[in-house]
Every structure is written in C-alpha cells, then in structure tokens.
C-alpha cells in the first residue's frame, strides 16, 4: 500500500537547511495497523505529511497504492488525497462554522456526491462513532474526544485505503484515548490500513507494528504482541 525507498527531506531554514528525514525505507502492506514512535522533533509528522501528500519529499521514491508519486500538482494531489487517504489530526481540524454532520460530509462534497446522499452517509458514519445525536452540533459544543471521533468519521466517510493519524490522542485524556484507539482498531479490523503517529507507549502498544524513529532514521521496526498474534493467524 505504502512503499518508501531512501526517502530524504530537509527544510530550508534561512540559508541553511534542516535535514529531517535521512533515508527512510518503509513498506506498509494493505490492512496493516502501524504506529510511528519517536521523541518530539524526530520527523514523525514530516513522514506522515509526505505519505499524506500534504508535503513533498526531496530524494527517494514513494509509491502509494503502487503508483509512483512524483511531480504532483495540487490538483492531482487533491484527487489522490480524496480517493485514497483519510486524515486525523491532533488538533482535530474541524471547520468551526460547520455542524458535525456537515464536517463529516465535506470530503464527499469534494468527491462530487449529491447533497442528500452526502448527509445520509455522513450521518451513518457519525452513528458509527456513536455521535448520531450530536450531528447538528457545532465543533465548539463538543468535547475533545467527541471532536476527534467526528474527525475520524470524516476520515472514513470516503472509504479511503489508508487512514493517517498524527497524534490523534495527543490532546485527549486517557479514557477518551482508549475509545479513540478502539475506534481505530475497529477500522483496521474492517481491513483499512491505519498509520498512527504517537509518542505514547500505551498507544503504540495497541497497534500491530511499531516503527521507531530517531533523528530522521528508523532505529527499529517490530511487531507487537497483537501483531505477532495476527501474523501467526495468517501463516
């Protein structure tokens, strides 16, 4: 699903440049539940943004769903994002003047789905994250956990191939963290590839595979207990 070979990324800072990703190789197969661990500033978000086509890499190859990503203009990137990717951000990134159901329906609008069907589908996904009764509420009337569940419903609504989540629990307390992780687990169980950034060990433990990043390099890439269990199942 996602294949990365020798990926480099630097950010220009004034005249110098900051080398953030220093030659990453990573392969994530369809249906995997992967987390990226690493201290703050290790380049986790940078990696996820490149995978999510929100940013461009400098050197190396990136294949999304078998397609080599290079020289994408904004328009093509928008289409690919809409088709393959669903985003969940640490800060939720809901549009403040839209209700929960309208926020969830927005990706379908850009997909060209009609209004009625859009709102119907959006409501189904809101119900799936147990927020049906909150459909007509604005984001500022929801708790952090609820906002993140709206964001997850929004990421799911287009039935993407990959869910990309950048510290989805970073702004949440431990109980809501668990409920969000349960949701992501459920999504993965349905066959969707889920790619989560976190710096919390307990969160990473709930995924199947942990990739550890330090100073722009992968220092370890291991299956968790549940990952091993799944792997055995398939063998």
């Amino acid at each position: 699903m996602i294949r990365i070979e020798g990926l480099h990324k630097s950010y220009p800072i004034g005249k110098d440049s900051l080398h953030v990703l220093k030659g990453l190789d990573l392969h994530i197969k369809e249906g995997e539940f992967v987390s990226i661990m690493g201290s703050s500033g290790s380049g986790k978000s940078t990696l996820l943004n490149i995978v999510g086509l929100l940013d461009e890499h400098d050197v190396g190859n990136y294949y999304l769903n078998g397609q080599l990503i290079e020289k994408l203009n904004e328009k093509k990137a928008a289409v690919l994002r809409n088709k393959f990717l669903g985003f969940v951000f640490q800060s939720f990134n809901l549009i403040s003047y839209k209700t929960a159901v309208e926020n969830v329906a927005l990706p379908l609008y850009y997909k060209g789905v009609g209004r009625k069907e859009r709102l119907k589908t959006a409501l189904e996904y809101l119900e799936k994250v147990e927020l049906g009764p909150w459909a007509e509420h604005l984001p500022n009337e929801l708790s952090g956990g609820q906002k993140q569940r709206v964001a997850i419903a929004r990421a799911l609504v287009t039935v993407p191939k990959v869910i990309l989540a950048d510290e989805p629990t970073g702004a949440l307390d431990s109980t809501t963290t668990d409920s969000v992780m349960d949701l992501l687990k459920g999504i993965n169980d349905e066959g969707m590839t889920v790619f989560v950034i976190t710096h919390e060990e307990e969160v990473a433990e709930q995924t199947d595979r942990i990739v550890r990043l330090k100073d722009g390099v992968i220092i370890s890439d291991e299956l968790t207990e549940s990952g091993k269990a799944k792997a055995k199942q398939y063998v």
Partner: protein
Amino acid sequence: MFDLDAWREIFQSINKNKLRAMLSGFTVAFAILLFTLLFGIVNGLQNFFTQAFVDDADNSMFVRTWKTTKPYKGLQSGRRIQLKNEHLDYILEEHSEKVQHISARKYLNVRITYKTKQDNYSIRAVHPDHRYLEKTIIDEGRFINQLDLNQKNKVIVIGRLVKKDLFGERLALGKYVNLNDISYKIVGVFSDEGGDREERNVYMPITTAQMLYGNNDYIDNILIGYNPRLTIDRAVAFGNRLERELRQKLNIHPDDQSALFIRNMAEANKNVGQLTTALFFIVILVGSGTLIAGIIGISNIMIFSIKERTKEFGIRKALGAKPGSIISMVVKESLLITSIAGYLGLVLGTFILSQIGDGLEEYFIYNPSVSSGIVIGATFTLIIAGLLAGYLPAKKAAQIKPIVALRAD
C-alpha cells in the same frame, strides 16, 4: 455553470461569517452610495445653472446704451448715446444671415385707465419678433404683428397681471383702454415665465410709440436672437464685432463699455459650459477617488479574510479540495457580497436623490439625479474590483501547500 451545492457552501460561509460579509458589503455599499450622491449633486448644480438662464431665449443678445465715459474724436465724455431705427436696419442689412430674430425696445411709462380703474404701467414698444426673444406666451388673442407696425395701429398686448388689475375675471380682449388719454385696443393677453414683474408689462408697436410719443425714430434697446446654427464661439465673435461696429457708427471709443454694451447669451452659455466642464472634472476626480477607496476597502477585507481562512483552506485541501474550487468559492463569495451591497448602495443613493428633488434649490442644486449608465458602470467597476480582490489573494492561498496552510493560525 450554476452549481447549487457550490452556492450553498458560499451562503453558509457568508452566513457563518456575518461580520466579515457585513464589513465588505458596507464598504461597497458606502462607496456606491457616495458616488451616486456626488454625481447626483453635481448634476443638480448643472440643472440649476441651465434652468437659471431659461427666462430669455438662450441665443439672445441685448444692445443697451448709456453715457460715454471716454472722450473720442474730439467729443466730450458724458455724452448720452441714442440708438435709432437706422442702427437696427444696419444690423439687419449687414448681418441678416447671422440674425434669427430682431426687435427694438422703447420704454414708456403711462397711466392706463379702464372705466373707473387706473394705474401706472411700463410699456415696451417692440417689433413682432420680440415675443420669441422674450419667450412671451400668448394666452389670448395675438401679439403685435407686421400690419400693426405698418399702419401704426393703436393696439396693445397686456400682461396677465395687468388684465387682472383692470378687468379682474372679465373679458379684456377687444376692449379699449386709455393710455394717457389716447385710446388703444387690447388685441392680446400674455404671460411670461420670467415672473410677476414681466407680467405687468404692456407691449405696443414700436412705430406707434415713435409717432405718438416724441415723434422721432429713437429706440432704447435692440434685442437680437442670433442664428442658432452659429457655434458658441462664432456667436461670441459676432457679438463683439457688432459691438465694435455700433460704437464706430455712434462715435464711441472702442472700449467704452458704459456708452454701448452688448449682453450676449453666447458668453453666458460659454461660461456655463466651462463651469460644467470644470464640475465634470471635479466629479471625475472625486468620483474615482471614492471608487478607489471602495476598491482598496474590499481588497483589504478580502486579503484579511483569506488570511483568516488559510487554515480552513488547508483542511479543505486535505479533504480533497482542488485549488480551483477554493478560488471559485472565495471569488463567488466576494462577487455575491459586492453585487448585493453595490445594488443596495445604488438604490439608497437614488432614493435619497429623489427625496431631495428641489429641496436644495437655495444651494444651487436642482433636481439632482444620476444617469443609470454612470452608476451601473461604477457598480460594475466595484464588482470587478471585488472579483480581483477575491481572486488574487485566493489564488495565492490556494497554492499554499496544505501542510503550511494547516499550520497557520
């Protein structure tokens, strides 16, 4: 293409950001309102000046004489100048192609008696053309005609107020009245837009007056209506030339304004024309200033609002919005606000102008109004400005990498 869903997005965005919409709407409406009022008021000024000169024919020239103030050819100053028939004849002979109407005017003050009623009135002894030069309106009967002139008829045409004084509501036409004991027949009643004073005048044939009062060929003024086909400049030149020629004929110093002077409407028209042109340029200046202020206003608001929404655009892009859809959303929003607000400003402006009507006449403003072409042009300018003001920053915002836009706050 009309895309209902796209407009729904826009209405929602406007509705949820009322302050922003109101601000830019207010700027546009205010600019158009000011523009409309300004143009209207200048138009009102023009209307006033045009109207102020409508009493007499606007192609008239008025020759009047008084005493010389400069010695000339051995003649003393202080000499009284007297126009005579020969001068009028001279104008007709020498300049017939430049003259449309011509009439002498001789003033008399007489006591008019009808039965028991009597009063003093001023008489104007004139030629038939005088009615065109003074824009006399014949209410009853007729004006002085050529036959009256030839036969030196004792006939008069009385003003509406003279009739009212002497006859009240009764019939005056055909009646005889005494002017200083000479009996005249009333052959007409006139009115005049020049006001009450004009309507207390009485007209009689110039020949009759010359025969009965002094038995000479004296006249006081000559009124000329120059050929309307003359350009203003040529009409001014004609007046100046006539002035020179008459001064020469009467042995007046060429620069003696007091002895003989021609009041030429062509010059007044020229001045009004120049005033109008000056006003026009002032309006262009101030009007475009208002518009530019409006344009800058919208641009600023749009730039600000787009900056404020950069993060929203980033979110939309992460969800699959193409740059074009973001640009079109912003531009349509800007367009919608500017056109509605522009229209409101326009309607309000024209409404205020129509309420003013002639209420500001004492400030030289009469019936202020604007031509729809100018206002529609101004509104379109603002709408196009609104489009650009939305398009340029939106295009820039739409090109920002989503990751940068998402980080914005």
